[in-house]
């Protein structure tokens, strides 16, 4: 009986050593690597199997990687440990300006947007607007280079509380709201956004069309 007790204690200690070793190791360990720590008399395969069973239903499992062993967090908890956090961020000025131009001038190509803005439109800016779900690629203009045409989405209308694109205020309304000064050349026109599916000069996008290739320094 006391012999059994003693054996149980030895075994318990061997298990504890294996536990600590596998926990602290940065790499999975082979039986040969663990053996010197546990002592000669130990039956490592049996001990490892016991440890595996012990951790089978826990948050951490003992897993086999080839001939080596390691502790890993349980697979079913993986998604939990990768949490998503939502963060509200104001749109940058560049993104806001680009969005506004697309809204009024759609369908608009990148070159057309840049003409109004007077500066280049970065790829990041377009990405943000597409990620926000407010801008979409509509098609390709039937002109040399076949540039992608951009337009707004229903989510855009939804976010800004518009029923139709035609609800966007025109020249007189913008002036009335004090957003445009009254001393503007009479030639200045505010376009009426095009709300339809495709314009005469637009081709639909092919299903696998990834849009314009944009250089990195853009």
């Amino acid at each position, binding site marked *: 009986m006391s012999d059994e007790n003693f054996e149980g204690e030895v075994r318990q200690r061997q298990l504890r050593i294996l536990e*600590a070793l596998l*926990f*602290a*190791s*940065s*790499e999975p360990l082979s039986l040969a690597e663990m053996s010197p720590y546990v002592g000669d008399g130990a039956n490592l395969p049996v001990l490892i199997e016991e440890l595996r069973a012990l951790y089978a239903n826990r948050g951490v499992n003992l897993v086999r990687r080839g001939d080596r062993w*390691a*502790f*890993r*967090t349980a697979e079913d908890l993986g998604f939990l*440990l*990768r*949490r*998503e*956090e*939502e*963060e*509200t*961020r*104001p*749109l940058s*000025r560049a*993104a*806001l*300006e680009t*969005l*506004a*131009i697309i*809204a*009024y001038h759609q369908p608009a190509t990148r070159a057309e947007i840049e003409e*109004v*803005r*007077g500066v280049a439109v970065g790829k990041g800016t377009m990405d*943000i607007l597409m*990620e*926000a779900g*407010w801008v979409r690629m509509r098609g390709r203009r039937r002109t040399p280079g076949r540039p992608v045409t951009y337009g707004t989405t229903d989510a855009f209308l939804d*976010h*800004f*509380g*518009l029923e139709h694109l035609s609800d*966007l*205020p025109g020249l007189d309304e*913008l002036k009335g*709201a004090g*957003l*445009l*000064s009254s*001393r*503007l*050349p009479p030639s*200045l026109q*505010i376009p009426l956004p095009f709300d339809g599916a495709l314009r005469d000069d637009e081709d639909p996008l092919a299903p696998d069309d990834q849009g314009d290739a944009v250089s990195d320094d853009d």
Partner: protein
Amino acid sequence: MTGSLTEWLDAEAPPADEVLHVDVDGYEGPLDLLLDLARRQKVDLAAISILALAEQYLSFIDRVRERRIEVAADYLVMAAWLAYLKSRLMVPQVQDDDEPSGEMLAAMLQFRLKRLEAMRLAASRLLSRPRLGLQIYSRGAPEPLEVARKSIWEASYYELLKAYSAQRERGAVTEYRPYTRTVWSLQDARDILQRLIGESADWIAMDTYLEQYLAKPDERATVRASTFASSLELVRQGEIEVRQSETFGPILLRRRKREQP
């Protein structure tokens, strides 16, 4: 005095980065030296003879200086303080002495030595604990927790319209032509007034004189203002007279009659 001087002078060299603070043979300051001397008395710090300790310190410093070794100022300050302490301990206390007694000074020094020794002991006890990375280990293969940040973009309708308007306005090619006003200078007004009044001695309204100039609406204000101001100047010079019979009534002007000499 126990131990030989050479034994002390053979003390281990200090690490290079601390060398500035170790000026006397590997000791880290006068308190460190005192503590080492005290330990050489081989008794409990509580039973130490502060007087003997002070003497040992002073003779140690003397010997070091005999060897023409520079002694850092704080060692000398301590030496001076210990010399003072020695004198306080050896001379009987005078009544009505405001300064602390020799016994109190000695007790303070003893306290500081005990406290320093206690902190050294504490440090070595800390070091002998099982330490992380030496005897105790953390997870060897940490699996970093990922927090994917998803941005929700925020923009108001007003900001959108403002952004658009600002851009269009920036882009609109506007030719700036400064609006130039016709302004009557006071000198002009005075010359014109002088000419119009002539030698007329009758009261005639200013607006009547200015009739032809007031035809242009955008010049009316400047014509009236400048003419009125000039008329006041002419009155001051005794050239003309001005009269107004009621508020907002017509301003009447005439040439002032010259006194016959």
